């Protein structure tokens, strides 16, 4: 059996990859997907902890997080679509009206 620490390491790696993706990508959709990767990293951590503690709570929490991620996707894609209509682009460097 694979020890739980391994899953935890995978989860941390996923989370860090999400953060890196969020900062280096210049595209709204990819940045948003990086956030989704981070959320799934958290889900993996929840399941690992729930499994090693032998309690079901963590596994149920994951369902809530998935629901939240879906709702976030719905509103996020709507906003990104609005940006596309205004700017004809979803690159972050094109969105810079306000500064300072």
């Amino acid at each position, binding site marked *: 059996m694979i020890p739980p620490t391994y899953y935890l390491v995978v*989860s941390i790696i996923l*989370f860090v990859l*999400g953060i890196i993706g*969020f900062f280096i990508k210049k595209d*709204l959709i990819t*940045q*948003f997907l990086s*956030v989704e990767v*981070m*959320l799934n*990293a*958290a*889900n993996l*951590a*929840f399941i*690992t*902890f*729930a499994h*090693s*503690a032998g*309690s079901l*709570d*963590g596994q149920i*929490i994951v369902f*809530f*997080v998935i629901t*939240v991620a879906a*709702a*976030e996707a719905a*509103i*996020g894609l709507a*906003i*990104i679509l*609005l*940006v596309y209509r*205004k*700017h004809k682009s979803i690159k972050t460097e094109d*969105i810079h*009206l*306000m500064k*300072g």
Partner: protein
Amino acid sequence: MNTFAALYPLLSIVVGALVVLLLEVFLKRKNRDYLAFISILFLLNAGRECIRVWNQGYTYFDGNLQLDNLALLLCLILTLATLLVILISMKYLRLQNVNFGEYYALLLFALSGMIIMVSSTDLLIIFLGLEVLSMSSYALAGLKIEDVRSTEAAVKYFLLGSFASAFLVFGLAFLYGAAHSLDIPAIVNFFRADTSLSLMALAGLGFVIIGFGFKIAWVPFHMWTPDVYEGSPTPVTAFFSVGPKVVGFAVLIRLFQLYWSESLNSQIVSSSLWVIAVLTMVAGNLLALRQRNVKRILAYSSIAHAGYLLVALLAEDNSGLVFYLFVYLFMNIGAFTAVIALSKKGTEYLDLENYKGIGFRYPWIGATLSVFLFSLAGFPPTGGFLAKFYIFASAVHEGFIWLVIIGVLASLISVYYYLRIVVYMYMHTATNDIEIDAYNPALFLVLFLCLYGVLQMGIFPGNVLIIIKQAVASLPIF
């Protein structure tokens, strides 16, 4: 007592939101004001329910929804804030061509999320409430769809907000792994029992603090604040500057319940919060100095106020913190109301240049805005002074001498940019003609109420303090 009555305040808000959403379909565009009145009715009902169950300690959902006095008081503050925001929105929405019925429904949904957050002690429920609040906020920020800035505000708020929520969830996972529960009392007990260094729990807590820090706008996590405040419709900005701060600090009050005695963990948390407080107070005030847009000035001022509030959290002065939040609600919404009053169809006057001579041309607006700015800066006869005084006094009492010195110096800096607006209003002659068209009884009612609140709490704070003491006493004692 486990009773369905605990659900009434929340239920009133949610039902109100759904009713508004439904009626929006049937009402013509020029009749949308009725929706505002309907939402105000539901808000008043929710406030009445909150007052009715005061001191009863009702719970529901197996104790997951807890209406202790602190939760009730914060519910009342938030309901009042939403009420004032709706009152100042009515004419503004018509003038700026954003009178969608969804606006009121989204505000009520955001309020319901905040009420869920303040009346629960389970971090999962709190997270879900936070998401209800955030989703509605993203939509509210982008509601001015004809304005590119509003869209930009929405997308920035959405991306950084969801980034912060991801941190929050990841932190929750680690807290869960350490304490095997997401219930705040269980987590506090875990930290109190654990006298050694527990890295996993601390990392989790750190991530949770980052998540809330984004919402509250502490300094390393404040980048979104000025842009979102500038781009959003102004009443929504007023809402953002009060609501998320109140709920963020409400959760942190419960989480840092008495600092888990004198453990090593609490020292680490305390010193990192110390650094954040200093950064927030200093950077918030310094960055405000070079702004010319009034909404941006108020955005940086709200960042600085988040720093003062953090001082109260560090000093464990819960009643001072709630008092500050109460005063902050009145002075900040008041200031934004005055900004909204200076607008006409399709235009808002936000640049400092536009404020030249306003004080003589529109004496009532100029005078009230000056009082709110004095209060934000912390001058004596106003509530802002007493609030700062209580916080800094208890911080000195707890031994945070340097923190208080830095805080006082930072608020001295803030006097410059607050008074600069007053100087522009009274000591410059008007160069261009500014026509304003936002005169409206509701707006004046809000200006008057905020003025009353600021002065009442500055001169006779006794009654409010008694209520706050009762509320804070409902926190569990370890």
